[in-house]
């Protein structure tokens, strides 16, 4: 067949497939005489290549959404460690006296709002779509994965409430307070045991949430959501929509990371004693807690950055 006909047939394949195999495939087609059978064969093969590309892209999008959610869970744990350390500590007054510390703290809050809003906006249609699928298809496994994070979060809240009730409202089983002692608090061994249980439940909640949301994003089937309002019809692919918001969430996590780095640096220079006297979870020093927070935010930022990079370079269409 002519090179022009071959080029037309090659153009039916996905772009990334053409980039890899286009030239050599065109050369092979040129060695074949044009016939209905050859054209039909190429059409079928091009269709299969598009289907493969769509499947690869969908699976890639699932990985992206799962990665961003896992990064967010890591950022939540890091944020809790930081907040628990600063709350009711001498760091509050030290921050108030220094513009850089106060500004970087605001930066952390802005980053948190950015990432949380991206997660919420992306998560709502995706969650709704997965729920609709679970209800329509009566998939018990999907229900289970959806409820595991909720059940573990409920177990954590119930645990903290129960401990508080049993100690007459004096002790909240907080990992940040196990190293302190007050007359109305339980014995040290009880504080450590309950604090460790709270931390384990928090860790389990985040891990279970990251694992189940990642699996749901990657494996469950979803339907496009149709929104009709006053004559305007919009159809949304929830997974593509969530992927489009991944860079937004990543920016939020990066802003938090930068804020934490600047905040720690400024606090060390303004009032090193305030940082040292503050206490992190399980009696960790303020400095150690800050470093731990920085490492966790660093991992979260790296995971979200990788996911964002993949939204720009999807898996090759085959």
């Amino acid at each position, binding site marked *: 067949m002519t090179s022009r006909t071959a080029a037309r047939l090659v153009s039916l394949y996905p772009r990334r*497939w053409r980039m890899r*195999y286009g*030239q*050599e*495939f*065109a*050369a*092979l*087609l040129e*060695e*074949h*005489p044009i*016939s209905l*059978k*050859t054209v039909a*064969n*190429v*059409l*079928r*093969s*091009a269709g*299969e*290549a598009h289907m493969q590309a769509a499947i690869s892209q969908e699976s890639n999008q699932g990985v992206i959404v799962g990665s961003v959610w896992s990064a967010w869970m890591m950022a939540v744990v890091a944020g809790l460690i930081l907040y628990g350390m600063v709350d009711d500590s001498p760091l509050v007054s030290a921050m108030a006296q220094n513009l850089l510390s106060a500004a970087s703290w605001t930066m952390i809050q802005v980053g948190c709002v950015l990432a949380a809003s991206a997660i919420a906006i992306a998560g709502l249609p995706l969650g709704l779509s997965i729920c609709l699928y679970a209800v329509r298809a009566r998939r018990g496994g999907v229900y289970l994965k959806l409820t595991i994070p909720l059940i573990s979060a409920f177990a954590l809240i119930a645990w903290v409430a129960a401990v508080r009730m049993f100690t007459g409202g004096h002790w909240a089983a907080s990992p940040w307070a196990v190293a302190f002692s007050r007359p109305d608090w339980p014995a040290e061994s009880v504080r450590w045991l309950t604090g460790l249980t709270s931390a384990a439940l928090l860790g389990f909640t985040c891990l279970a949430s990251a694992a189940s949301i990642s699996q749901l994003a990657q494996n469950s089937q979803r339907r496009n959501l149709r929104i009709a309002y006053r004559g305007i019809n919009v159809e949304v692919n929830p997974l593509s929509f969530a992927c489009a918001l991944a860079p937004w969430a990543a920016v939020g996590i990066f802003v938090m990371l930068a804020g934490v780095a600047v905040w720690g640096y400024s606090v060390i220079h303004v009032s090193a004693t305030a940082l040292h006297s503050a206490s992190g979870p399980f009696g960790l020093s303020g400095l150690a807690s800050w470093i731990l927070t920085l490492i966790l935010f660093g991992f979260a930022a790296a995971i979200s950055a990788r996911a964002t990079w993949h939204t720009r370079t999807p898996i090759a269409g*085959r």
Partner: protein
Amino acid sequence: MRNSTRYVVVESKAEQFSDPPLLVLASLIDGPKHGYAMIEEIERMSGARLGPGTLYGAITRLEQQRLIEPLAVEERRQPYRLTVTGRRALRTKLLAMRQIVLAGLRKLEAQ
């Protein structure tokens, strides 16, 4: 390309029962080949003439699985060769097929 109706029927049936990736691997046993040479070799071996789309579908999958690898381009033609993993995978598959063939023939002859 053959033109006789009879051959087309035989050819399509042969392709229907063939495993294009396996045929591509088998065509590369005696050395690297480009697409057209693979089609010719496969036809010699099995009687099935793969269409260009089918051939490149198989090449795509095999390269993805690292069972074959491309060599330097020769006048727009891209030769491929078996990788060590590809040779091993092909041998395993052929040995398994031999067992199926022997068992199947024994059963057919026993009837």
